């Protein structure tokens, strides 16, 4: 399974890529030692309730996210701009956790 996460928050841009088969986990192009399977399972639990697209008002310094999960030929993708799923705080916590490692 391959995961691509792109988050633009205000002026900051964070890109996360994970590959469960290769065990690779990259944040902004840098390799990190993260348990990819654990990360993937937690992410799948979070995105289960997400809508594919959520668009809010146009804001200066707002936030947009794009999460793409590819498993063989299947793809699930989620995009949001200034509008977020109810459990987005759990997603933010997960991202902060891996970024702080």
């Amino acid at each position, binding site marked *: 399974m391959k995961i691509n996460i792109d988050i633009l928050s205000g002026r900051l841009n964070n890109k996360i890529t994970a590959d469960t088969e290769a065990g690779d986990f990259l944040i902004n192009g840098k390799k990190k030692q993260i348990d990819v399977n654990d990360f993937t399972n937690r992410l799948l639990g979070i995105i289960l309730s997400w809508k594919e697209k959520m668009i809010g008002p146009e804001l200066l310094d707002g936030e947009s996210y794009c999460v793409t999960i590819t498993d063989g030929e299947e793809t699930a993708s989620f995009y949001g701009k200034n509008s*977020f799923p109810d459990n987005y705080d*759990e997603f933010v916590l997960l991202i902060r956790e891996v970024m702080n490692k």
Partner: protein
Amino acid sequence: MISVKVQGIDIFNPLDGKLKKITDSFIEYYGEEYREKISEKLMDARVLFLCKYNGEDMSTRIENYLVACKSKWEDDIFGTFPYYTDKRKTHLTIDKVLELNKKIKSKKLTSLDYYLIESVYETLGFNNLIKPPKSMDEYGIREWFKLSKNKNVIIEALNRIEYMWNSGYKQQEAELLEDIKNIPQDVLKIEQKLRKIARVCKNKQKDLAFDHIKKNASRKISDSEAMVVKNTLYSLLSKGKEEFLNERTISAVNDQYITLFNVLGYDFGSDIKEYKECEELLDIVFNKDLIDEFNKIKNSLTKARIEADGYYIGAERVLDTINIDGDTQPYKDVLYNYLYNSGLVIALATDYIDKLCYKHHKLVFCEDALACDDETLFHELNHAIESGLLSKNNGEYYFKCGFIKSRVPLGNDEESRNEILKYQMLNEIVNDYFSLEVAKVARKNNVKICLNDYSAPSLYSKAFPLFKKFIENNKNIIVNCRLLDEPHAMAKLMGQEEFDKLADIANQYLSFVNSNILYEAEAEIKNKTGIKKAVFNSYEEYINKNIEWSDKTKMVLSYYKKMDEISKNFETRKLGIVKSNGKYTIQ
């Protein structure tokens, strides 16, 4: 107001006592002629440092900060040894090294971590010693230390590390641990309330979902199934029926849905389509009464959260007391969205007019100093100095921010939205470029405001290689135009058409970042030229090299040609530009 001190800094008021030094850094970069303007704008800016509580307690946040500090301190200490690299850091922490030294000193060589000894041996540059044997049991360790050459050199190094730790960092660690103990009671109470509200609400929603499943289940639900089906129905209710029917997803997700549907007595195999077409099943899952109750619990959470969130209440009080001219509700909406709907956004800025003195103020909502970094703060403060009031028409204010003219709150009308969409990227690239330069000046002058040292690379900085030459060659004019109360001054000097081309280039180039094209082009250039750093700083070199580029890389490089054309055209126009009365005009 809530106050939490970390390393002597109030994380909710880190600007306290530092405004003069910050102002001086801006003036040092922009020039003395802007002293008055910069001083006034920064003095008038209202920056509210807030905590976006997301389940992480203040104590955990300070502990995480301590971990980050320790990692830096370890680099400082271990970095004084010749073979230390990031790669070799894995097993080496200051705590482990101090513990090792303690054991050696007390001659308790049992239960030593082999990898730690190996790391000490390799990273601290003892390659001239006899390598510790792989089978490092208690006997082996004793034998190894018996070799006096090993022992003395290692003990000397470990003592040196301990001395550095004790003289420079131990105290700081102790102070941070003390800061955790001193977190005020009102903060702990807010966290306790918010944690409880979030937990109770989510549990209530999940319990509701599970009761519904039990009522409609065709068989007994095993313990292992219970958690899956409860979460799945909770997710489906959050997502909604229409979204579920139209979504494209992966088998791992569909399997969870199917587990729930099977428990409810519907088994059509592994094809999710069959389930989506079963109206009877959909009526059970998306039961109207269930959805109403589910949403009722969610709405009560929003209300309870606002009432319990001291950070929100405190900021709302500030908004009520700063004499905003007009309705304060739009500002409260921005505050609400910032605290609860802005994810990882660290700071955002808007404008208001003080009704008592009819003066423009920048209003910045910003995460507290544990989460915010100086670069982000300077970015927002730079927006403050390049903003101003333009006019008041039919009771509505018009503001400028750099190259953009808009109404307050930003972007709520068609005209403002169009202006933002067209010029926002260019405006932000230039703002970020200048603010990062000012941040460098501040750092050089030992001005430090926030505690977070890690700043993710800004999106806008990805366009610096493309814009740097143009910005540097025309810095005086650009600065003058941005600081004047005239948003379209630069467009007038360049010519509207050329200015629009510049804005288009900014929009298109940054879209390459989102679509990964820029990363791919960078990788290709690095790969084919062997150049490791600053790939786009001397693009001519790459264009002229006899290398076959992919279409994507050719496209990225073509933007450097476009920028060159714009720069040349402006050089010609500049011949007719003069400065009089502190303002650039075309003759």
